[in-house]
């Protein structure tokens, strides 16, 4: 447990992604089974101990610490687990039992009931030092918050044992903590765990941006890139799951899609909801904002299902009736997908159409003319390419629509992390809420930390320091003097922002050192671009 506690603390104080990967990888290499498996489960949110609640910890502390001193301390620290770990009194008798291993901790926490927890949790706390108690309470109450995503933890696993991340992702989903077969495979060279009999996530094939490349349409096929969320529907032995691009199981949010798939298959498509966008290329798909109403829900009401009905626009078929089609060229998979369509209910599935053009220039013209908001751009797929996981050069390209542009004024700058920790590199910018010459104010409309070179960053940093009006911790407010040309993919209404709107993927396109701030855009100009 102390090693896990040390890992947790080290992760707390580390901001860089690579440094976090290294910390987890080193831990996995140095820690025996099954502790390292439990640690992976803890980091990826795969453990649950229903008997231990935050209120349990508070009740234990009230038995041990004066309630006034407790609440003063809790208010200062701001976190119950940390306050309890700091205030836990040393046991009356010196405990000779050695600190528990993570395996012992998991075993004991699992065995606790509502009745036994008030007696058994203190026995564990008594055997640990402060970092150990902190880790124990965080683990037990399911609020680890180490700033580590499940994906990052699995990437660290791949790094530790030098195995491909795609294989890790594929095998991971069928395994239960503490993942003995996975460690046997990755660390000791045992055969990989079998996955073909389970409705598991298969890593997606991804695309590179097209940039300046031109492709020959004899080799590549074009298809619209839809503005929904990439989804994988998996049905094995009659059991169906829906997975997001990162491999998260989103079946509970889209029960109608899970119910709608009538054949054993693995399908790749875009999850969309039907909306008022009639006609056009979108065939009735609503905007991304409508889809967002459906995301992240554990249960879905009838009204939700009726108001925002989901469907999947299919791109590809990876497995059909137990046959893995991924090694086949795209042309053959497309044929199989087209003939599969007649077995799928049209209420919930349609086929992403191909975009026909005689040559690349004609295709570019079609892309320019696409006005549908549900279209993000074009996909270009090599006709003879198998379905391979991840991003491979030359197989799939995404060719996004030209971004929308708006001129904004820098308002706040925040220091970055890692290599950028001495630079003000994260910028909040705003648009005028009226005529700036008549006393209008700026309303923040977005935040960006990319789109500039290192040289430009140094100049921006200097500008921020020389034009600071107020400081709030790592944030500086600046004079309203610098204009950014901001590029973004779309803009939507948002209740969370004071300006009432939110940009998708804003980035700094150009720094307009030359442009006076009062000539920056007004919020109305941005509002006019909303297509919710």
């Amino acid at each position, binding site marked *: 447990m102390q090693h896990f506690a040390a890992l947790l603390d080290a992760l707390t104080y580390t901001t860089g992604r690579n440094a976090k990967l290294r910390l987890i990888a080193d831990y996995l290499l140095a820690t025996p089974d099954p502790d390292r498996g439990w640690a992976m489960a803890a980091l990826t949110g795969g453990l649950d101990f229903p008997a231990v609640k935050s209120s349990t910890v508070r009740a234990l502390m009230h038995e041990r*610490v004066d309630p006034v001193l407790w609440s003063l301390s809790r208010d*200062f*620290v701001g976190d119950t687990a940390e306050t309890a770990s700091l205030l836990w009194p040393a046991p009356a008798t010196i405990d000779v039992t050695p600190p528990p291993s993570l395996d012992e901790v998991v075993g004991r926490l699992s065995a606790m009931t509502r009745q036994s927890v008030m007696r058994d949790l203190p026995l564990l706390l008594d055997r640990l030092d402060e970092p150990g108690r902190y880790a124990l309470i965080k683990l037990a109450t399911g609020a680890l918050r180490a700033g580590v995503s499940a994906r990052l933890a699995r990437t660290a696993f791949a790094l530790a044992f030098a195995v491909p991340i795609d294989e890790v992702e594929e095998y991971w989903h069928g395994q239960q903590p503490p993942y003995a077969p996975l460690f046997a495979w990755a660390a000791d060279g045992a055969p990989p765990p079998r996955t073909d009999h389970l409705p598991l996530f298969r890593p997606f094939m991804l695309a590179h941006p097209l940039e300046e490349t031109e492709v020959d349409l004899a080799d590549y096929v074009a298809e619209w890139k839809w503005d929904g969320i990439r989804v994988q529907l998996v049905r094995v032995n009659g059991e169906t799951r829906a997975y997001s691009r990162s491999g998260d199981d989103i079946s509970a949010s889209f029960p109608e899609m899970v119910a709608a798939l009538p054949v054993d298959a693995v399908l790749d498509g875009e999850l969309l909801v039907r909306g008022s966008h009639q006609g056009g290329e979108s065939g009735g798909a609503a905007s991304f904002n409508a889809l967002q109403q459906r995301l992240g829900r554990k249960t879905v009401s009838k009204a939700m299902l009726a108001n925002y009905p989901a469907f999947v626009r299919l791109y590809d078929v990876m497995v059909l009736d137990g046959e893995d089609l991924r090694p086949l060229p795209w042309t053959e998979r497309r044929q199989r997908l087209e003939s599969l369509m007649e077995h799928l209910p049209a209420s919930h599935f349609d086929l992403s159409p191909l975009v026909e053009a005689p040559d690349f220039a004609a295709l570019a013209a079609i892309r320019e003319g696409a006005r549908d908001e549900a279209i993000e751009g074009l996909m270009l797929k090599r006709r003879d390419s198998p379905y391979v996981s991840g991003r491979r050069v030359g197989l799939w390209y995404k060719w996004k629509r030209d971004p929308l542009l708006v001129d904004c004024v820098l308002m706040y700058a925040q220091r970055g*992390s890692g290599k950028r*920790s*001495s630079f003000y590199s994260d910028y909040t910018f705003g648009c005028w809420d009226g005529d700036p010459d008549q006393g209008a104010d700026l309303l923040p409309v977005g935040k960006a930390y990319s789109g500039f070179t290192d040289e430009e960053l140094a100049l921006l940093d200097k500008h921020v320091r020389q034009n600071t009006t107020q400081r709030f911790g790592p944030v500086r407010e600046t004079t309203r003097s610098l204009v950014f040309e901001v590029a973004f993919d779309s803009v939507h209404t948002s209740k969370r922002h004071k300006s009432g709107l939110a940009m998708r993927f804003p980035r700094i396109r150009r720094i307009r050192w030359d442009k006076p701030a009062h000539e920056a855009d007004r919020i109305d100009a941005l509002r006019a671009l909303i297509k919710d």
Partner: protein
Amino acid sequence: MSAPFSWIRPDPHGIRILPANAWIDPARPVDRALVTHGHADHARGGHGETIATPATLAIMKLRYATSAGAIPVEYGETVALGGGVSATYIPAGHVLGSAQILLEHAGERVVITGDYKRRADPTCPPFEVTPCDVFITEATFGLPLFTHPPIEEEIAKLLARMGAEPDRCVLVGAYALGKAQRVIAELRQAGHHAPIYLHGAMEKMCHLYEDFGVGLGELRLVADTPKDEMRGAIVVCPPSALGDRWSRRLPDPVTAMASGWMRVRQRARQRGVELPLVISDHADWHELTRTVEEVNPAETWITHGREEALLRWHQLHQRRARALALVGYEDEDD
């Protein structure tokens, strides 16, 4: 016969000794000030007379460039202030020159601690328990969650990190008066004899410590040093220089911070600290409460810090206490 302790009065800007027309650590210029130690929130400039230890006076001269009206008092020495009040300066163990002040008047004894700690510190003599009727204490770390670990453990952490990062330097943010010199002296005691690199703002204070006999080993200025020389080394700077542009001249620094606040993870994270070092020159909760028990005063007055919790502790232990609500003291010198 006046009421007990009516000759000493806590005003918002300091503690006043009425019969002697003098103040303790006043927050604004006065005719006559008794100063406990050199931290800026206690030792302000511009007083007519300043009565303090020689080291505190030297620190004030360094900061305010004048020693007009300076009246030195050695530890253990008693001075008559007039009006029947005498003052004795007693080590407080906080920083070089720091003193508690024992005031005596008409058979009543009052001790003002200034800031203090109970741990050993190679840069100043230890706190001495002085019996009194009224004990006027600080409470900077007056919450039961504050337990400062042994400094040897924190120094070992610092040295281990330095050893583990041969291509980087470890940049330790430490208050320029006291904390920085204590960390350096403790590193020397732990057997670290390599040069330690300093931010320019610390140079003079380190020299002052050496003039008062505190050996700090070989110190070099970052400004005079090529970047590569500082790889695998320790650099000390004021907390305000962490994450400042100044740090770009260092080789990929690991950000460390030596402060009692580092006990709380969120505090360390807010400051972007990678290596929190729980090192404080103030008494932690256990030292505060133990000190009250050892001094065993009839009454405790609390000057600054988290006084609510310490008041509550007095209540739970049937002891008399009051908070003075003085202004102008900050927790900066943690």
